[in-house]
């Protein structure tokens, strides 16, 4: 990381471009170690991208603004149901029109839920949001207009590009033989056909959403808004006394999180083509939270790592599926008690920079001042 930040700008851009390219190409590479033996790798990657999206959104709420949201799946459900209703159950809108509406509806519900509850004490908020997530699900279960227990199917798909049979062009996958790598011309992904079997285009869609949200996240975090969130999280009263309208910013964080959650839900619904209330159990709120906390709340790269682990590991090791919740529970307890800041805590780079600085000073024979010692101790 520290070498990366020292590189000249064009080199940095090139590196990021290569990383992005690799991410997009991942399902085509069919890398033997990464690929999931028991389930379609591209589908798994799509799930990973949705978890990444959700983790980025929840990270704004939990990691940046310090609001514990245990009902995040509620916004995800709102996004999914809005798309399902508009494109299939009560309308036949094109998906690309339904998604913005879904996202806005999720955001508005974030404001409606947040406006009254963000004034109550932080840990009450956790319980209220938990209640909210369950209410959304129970309402879906009990309302025929929302498909009830049976759910909604035939949800709209993204528009295809090019001819239904071949797309604009076909992209071959790799085939790994014994020591040889071949282009497999029989196993191709059509660019860009959103069909039932091939999940690769959906993964590309999900990944694109992740990249966009990630960019927005970087821009917003590195501004007055991001500072206000962090200050509010660290010491709400002090922030308020430094002129930060904390309530406004908490509401902003909450609704921004809802926005991203709604987007993730909408994409999920479109890929599944079918949703029912079972897709929005409380368990998912906890898994999302686990992704954020395990990765390192407050650090966007950390939460992406967490999302990857939470979504990917159970697919890679299908045999242990029964023990997945148990494992996450254990992970939460262990992390909270042993490493509360997560695998990749935020500000790692800042601390690394400081250490580097101190080492430089030592090497130059300069006496470390007492501040330096304190840093080392802290």
């Amino acid at each position, binding site marked *: 990381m520290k070498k990366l930040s020292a590189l000249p700008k064009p080199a940095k851009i090139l590196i990021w471009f290569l990383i992005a390219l690799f991410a997009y190409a991942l399902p085509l590479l069919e890398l033997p170690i990464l690929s999931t033996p028991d389930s379609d790798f591209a589908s798994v990657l799509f799930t990973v991208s949705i978890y990444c999206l959700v983790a980025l959104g929840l990270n704004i709420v939990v990691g940046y603004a310090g609001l514990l949201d245990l009902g995040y799946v509620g916004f995800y459900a709102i996004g999914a149901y809005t798309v399902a209703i508009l494109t299939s159950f009560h309308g036949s809108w094109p998906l690309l029109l339904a998604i913005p509406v879904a996202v806005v509806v999720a955001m508005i519900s974030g404001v409606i839920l947040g406006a009254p509850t963000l004034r109550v004490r932080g840990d009450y908020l956790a319980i209220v949001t938990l209640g909210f997530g369950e209410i959304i699900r129970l309402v879906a279960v009990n309302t025929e207009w929302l498909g009830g227990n049976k759910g909604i199917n035939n949800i709209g798909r993204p528009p295809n590009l090019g001819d239904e049979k071949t797309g604009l062009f076909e992209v071959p996958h790799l085939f790994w033989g014994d020591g040889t790598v071949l282009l497999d011309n029989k196993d191709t992904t059509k660019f860009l056909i959103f069909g039932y079997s091939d999940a690769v285009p959906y993964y590309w869609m999900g990944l694109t959403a992740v990249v966009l949200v990630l960019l*927005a996240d970087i*821009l*917003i975090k*590195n*501004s*007055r*808004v*991001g*500072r*206000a969130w*962090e*200050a509010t999280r*660290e*010491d709400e*009263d*002090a*922030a*308020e*006394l*430094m*002129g*930060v*309208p*904390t309530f406004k910013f908490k509401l*902003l964080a909450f609704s*921004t999180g809802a926005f991203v959650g709604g987007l993730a839900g909408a994409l999920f619904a479109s890929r599944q083509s079918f949703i029912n209330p079972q897709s929005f159990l409380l368990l998912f709120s906890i898994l999302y939270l686990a992704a954020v906390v395990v990765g390192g709340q*407050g650090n966007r790269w950390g939460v992406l790592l967490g999302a990857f682990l939470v979504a990917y590991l159970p697919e890679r090791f299908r045999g242990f599926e029964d023990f997945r919740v148990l494992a996450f529970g254990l992970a939460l307890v262990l992390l909270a008690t042993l490493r509360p800041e997560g695998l990749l805590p*935020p*500000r790692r780079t*800042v*601390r690394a*920079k*400081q250490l580097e600085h101190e080492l430089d000073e030592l090497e130059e024979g300069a006496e470390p001042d*007492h*501040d330096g010692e*304190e*840093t080392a101790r*802290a």
Partner: protein
Amino acid sequence: MPDLTKQEPAAAAPVAPRGGTVLEVRNVTLKFGGLTALDDVSFEIAEGEILGLIGPNGAGKTTCFNAVTGVYRPTSGDILFEGASIIGLKKHKITQKGIARTFQNIRLFPTMTALENVLVGTDAQHTTGMLSALFRLPRHRREEEQGHARAMELLRFMGIHRKADELAANLSYGDQRRLEIARAMATGPKLICLDEPAAGFNPAEKVELMNLIRKVRDQGYTVLLIEHDMKLVMGVTDRIVVLEFGRKIAEGAPAEIRDNPAVIAAYLGVDEEDAS
């Protein structure tokens, strides 16, 4: 009684030119359940003045700050800032109107760098929102540049600009206190309230800080200062208000306070014993 002027940090400052009244505390009473922390307290601060607020432990000094900055709502009485009542205003509104403060027990944002802490202060005057930030609109860029420049200026003024990129939590105790003052100044206040800014400092550091506070005033700020060290208060303030058990027992120029028998009984007597 000892000669309090002996160790003054510098010659007594000439009384600054007085403008109008910046803050008026009018018959403020504040109760916590049965405890009366402030009892019918009134005083004024004139523009460009350094007003000292002193009194023994538990006299109600910090509570007075809390009432002025909107943390607690007075049980009765009124607080006027530039002629308008600020009772019932939200805390951040009061700050935006022009009252800033520091805290007796340091309350920085520990996971943010020194620079970012001060930037949060400068943001009090900014209006960049989500969309400006997202699309990097001119307003975002302008405010970010201005805030940055101002913040670095303030860090330099407090002598901690070399630590700009360190986390607040990793600063030394003294630098944390200095950073709090920089952060408060960054909000662009007219009145700045310092709650025992020199607590825990050694004598030399204290003298330095008091000189700094005078410089703060000379930059056009009005200062309300809580300080335990009598000698320092005498040296730096234009006027002093003395609280005891929530009541104002004296008010006047440092020389008058020094000779006021009630103050000597309530405060200096204790201080003298402590000192020996």
